[in-house]
């Protein structure tokens, strides 16, 4: 096991910059998820940690050792790939033992370690099979088995669940998290799916266009997003974002032109500025004195109902209610944010106020 330290890592392909100085301290045994939209550089960063991509400038250290120029096999890492990358002509057992075989371990030791890993992942019945004879979930598990056989310092996962169907994805999510709790190995996991990130991570690194937007525990990101990008990226359905001007008074409020949203406790210094107000769908409540709106669409999910409403001039907001209100499209309603559940961002920079 080992900590992973990334200091001001830059990456350019030719003249195209991909990463603009990324720094992360990953503690020993931590489960860190790199999340962001496609093209944000998260996979590139993971491949740099693996040694599959060169670091243009900056430093990556595993444990105490800077590994910038160390080849992948000497980094003591194991990686699980998006398409599993199982060797098609090798059996499950041969796949899992391949790395040990390459490092010249005795056959008896390889067999023992493969069997132990197989028992952890319930793969024993499949050891003699070939990858093409396995289902997607089983292949995924073999890919993980191949990683844990080596007992590495760091696990790297590159979007490992994106090829599975929704149900299996949820199941494997739990399995990976459980495996991490059991083995306690430092894990770096890349995904574009914020729900995967929220459910699995000890800490999440939100990336966008080659920079880190925020690093924090899942609920930290959810409750206090550092900027509008994180605010709208984390959470589903996404946070409602409304532009307006912050105005003073007994209770400061944001005037969006169509609605006035009270923001108790807003800094007096920010009064008069152009701001973006963020309100999570579940923070909106039906209230007599709230913002007038017209129901556009009602989407019951079972656990809650999502109501998309027009607050005027085609500006839509989404509200999530746990009560099963009988609302029909076209019905007039009034919506108000729950007290203290309003996020305020600078309109220009997007930074949280």
């Amino acid at each position, binding site marked *: 096991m080992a900590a992973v330290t990334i200091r001001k890592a830059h990456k350019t392909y030719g003249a195209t910059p991909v990463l603009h100085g990324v720094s992360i301290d990953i503690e020993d045994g931590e489960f860190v998820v790199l999340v962001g939209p496609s093209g944000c550089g998260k996979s590139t960063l993971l*491949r740099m940690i*693996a*040694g*599959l991509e060169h670091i243009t400038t900056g430093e990556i250290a595993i444990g105490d050792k800077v590994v910038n120029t160390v*080849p*992948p*096999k000497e980094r003591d*890492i*194991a*990686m699980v*790939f*998006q*398409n*599993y*990358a199982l*060797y*098609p*002509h*090798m059996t499950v057992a041969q796949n899992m033992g*391949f*790395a040990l075989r*390459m*490092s010249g371990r005795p056959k008896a030791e390889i067999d023992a370690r493969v069997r132990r890993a197989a028992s952890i992942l319930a793969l024993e019945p499949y050891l003699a099979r*070939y990858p*093409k004879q396995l289902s997607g979930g089983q292949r995924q598990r073999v890919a993980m088995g*191949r990683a844990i056989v080596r007992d590495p310092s760091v696990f790297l996962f590159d979007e490992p669940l994106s090829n599975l169907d929704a149900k299996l994805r949820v199941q494997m999510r739990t399995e990976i998290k459980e495996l991490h709790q059991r083995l306690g190995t430092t894990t770096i996991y890349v995904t574009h799916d914020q729900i995967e990130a929220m459910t699995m991570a000890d800490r999440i690194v939100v990336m966008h266009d080659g920079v880190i937007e925020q690093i924090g525990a899942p609920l930290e990101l959810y409750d206090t997003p550092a900027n509008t990008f994180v605010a709208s990226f984390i959470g589903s359905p996404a946070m409602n974002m409304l532009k307006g001007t912050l105005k003073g008074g007994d209770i400061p409020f944001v005037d969006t032109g169509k609605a006035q949203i009270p923001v108790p406790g807003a800094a007096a210094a920010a009064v008069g500025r152009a701001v973006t107000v963020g309100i999570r769908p579940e923070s909106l409540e039906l209230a007599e004195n709230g913002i007038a709106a017209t129901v556009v669409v009602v989407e019951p999910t079972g656990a809650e109902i999502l109501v998309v409403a027009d607050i005027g001039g085609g500006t839509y907001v989404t509200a999530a209610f746990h009560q099963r209100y009988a609302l029909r499209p076209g019905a007039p309603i009034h919506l108000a944010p729950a007290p203290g559940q309003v996020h305020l961002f600078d309109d220009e920079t997007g930074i949280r106020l």
Partner: protein
Amino acid sequence: MARKRWAAQTEPQPFLAFVLNTPAVGLLLLLVVYPIVYSFWLSLHAYNLRKPRQFEFIGLDNYADILSSGQFWHAARVTAVFSVGSIGLTVVLGTLLALLLNEKWPGRGVLRAVALIPWAIPPVVNGLVWQWMLEGRHGLLNYIFQSIGLIDSYQAWLSYPETALPALVIAQVWNHVPFVAIVILAALQTVPDELYDSALVDGANIFRRFFFVTLPWLSHALLLVLITQTMVALRTFDIIYVLTGGGPGDSTTVLAWLTYITTFSYTDFGKGNAYAYTIAVLTMILSVFYIRLLWKRGEMAK
């Protein structure tokens, strides 16, 4: 109205199906099946054009004659040497060329196109080209070898048994390497990059990546190439016709050439067809052998 009647016609019409298929089937029967069956029928007869009225059924006697003649076994040996040499070199060089063409480097596109040219050349023309190359008094090969000091004086390469067969192998290889290279290149381009990444992380060096990732992935393509190249090698006739005529002596008399001279020089159609069938059976046996050798591994690559 007419359209509706057509559309409404859902009854099977076996008669129409037969009528529509008859021209194609008839052509196949006439041009493929009939000659195959007729040539087998001939191979069971004593039939020499020198005595065209004598057409006697002799069962497998032609085959027995062939298998007990020293001529056949000599030609079989020559064929084996020629085939092993040309197939081996073609597959190895073709694979190496494919690996080269699969790497990213400037000029790759041009070379990919150029590499195909020898394949587009008909075997007879290929033979003529190599006839010039190997020519004893003005040949290019002589010039090159002499200027790099490999030989003292010009040699008539095709006039000595020791060099005639290798010369044929080289001509054959030059003609067929592009085909192998293209097939292998196509297979190479389907290898997922992830497998190489994974092998890198697993600590496999460049040679092990080739033997554990690339080569197994190519087994289907190699199977295809081996079978087609074996067929080509066993049937090779054109370049021998042009370059050596089976000589000097009988040093380059392969089975296909023996078939040709038996049939058309000695006009022994019975035995000639028996030779042709012997080659066909030999090819079939070798193909089955290849498939058994490579199929299981290849299937795993899918």
